[in-house]
């Protein structure tokens, strides 16, 4: 009986915790109150306090995880919404996203190697600048851990949200289209959400960049990361 009820309880609790934090974030829309981050902390604490194994939790959790792939497909919608922008400025956008993607992968892998991080962990965090769904899929494909990839993605999101505007003012970048591309290509959806509060134009560019960078990284990473690791 337990084998049937327990996964259902885990599943319902996870959903309830997420929606509670989502409501909280709507009232207090700060980057640090990210619903996913707060939900992860809450669930980890509960599992820790009740001494529940991760594998036991995943008997219910895997029902929710089954929707990751459809979630990636749904990202086709924002891609479609930005197609007018992509068709008009495709050279600049694709060029910027290729540059951002290659630059991010290079810095992540080489810096992590220099700091002596384990190779499997490098494979997990190499894709940290792209949107969670595709980062998880890509890092799993190249031999990393999807869980670690998701955590690394949040670091990029918070860094961009917290310090992005400060960096732009230090660099004296006033062109909001360039600012949007920078936020989207370096700190994905969190960056795009942050910049949306300042400029809707920048937000459209950020959304475009986050999708294009994710696609470019998914293409390039399986070839480029083994090459960087072999250096």
């Amino acid at each position: 009986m337990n084998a049937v009820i327990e996964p259902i309880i885990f599943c319902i609790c996870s959903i309830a915790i997420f929606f509670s934090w989502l409501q909280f974030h709507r009232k207090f829309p700060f980057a640090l109150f990210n619903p996913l981050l707060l939900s992860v902390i809450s669930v980890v604490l509960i599992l820790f306090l009740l001494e529940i194994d991760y594998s036991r939790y995943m008997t219910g959790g895997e029902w929710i995880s089954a929707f990751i792939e459809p979630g990636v497909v749904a990202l086709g919608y924002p891609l479609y919404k930005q197609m007018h922008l992509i068709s008009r400025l495709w050279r600049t956008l694709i060029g910027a996203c290729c540059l951002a993607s290659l630059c991010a992968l290079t810095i992540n892998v080489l810096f992590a190697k220099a700091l002596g991080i384990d190779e499997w962990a490098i494979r997990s965090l190499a894709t940290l600048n792209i949107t969670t769904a595709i980062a998880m899929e890509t890092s799993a494909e190249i031999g990393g851990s999807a869980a670690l990839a998701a955590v690394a993605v949040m670091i990029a999101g918070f860094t961009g949200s917290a310090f992005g505007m400060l960096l732009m003012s230090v660099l004296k970048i006033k062109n909001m289209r360039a600012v949007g591309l920078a936020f989207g290509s370096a700190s994905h959806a969190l960056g795009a959400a942050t910049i949306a509060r300042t400029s809707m134009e920048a937000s459209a560019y950020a959304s475009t960049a986050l999708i294009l960078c994710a696609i470019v990284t998914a293409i390039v990473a399986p070839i480029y990361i083994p090459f960087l690791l072999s250096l």
Partner: protein
Amino acid sequence: MLKYLFAAFLISICLIVGKALAHYIGFFPGSIYGMLLFAAILASNIFDEAAIGAAIAKIINIMPLVFLPVCVGVIQYGDLLQTSGWKIVAVGMSSTLSVMALVAFICAKILRDERCD
């Protein structure tokens, strides 16, 4: 409700075709093929985008939920985070700020000359 069901149906079809493409062509994960196919279908105007657009926007809004169980898996890496946690944060912060600065700097120069209405 019908809009959600239709959006889910369309996404499922794209994912199935995407997985088939990934199986036969390889290169991308099936979900990426599915995403590109989904964007292409919406762009082709076969279906009324307005009918399913709102439903998909809501789905995307709550999408972080599906990552929750996998993210909780980070508890398996407690040792790694204790020994190398600060290194991972250092890598993440430095690459994010470097990429941001580089893209902003180059794009500000390019987009200044580009016409945009």
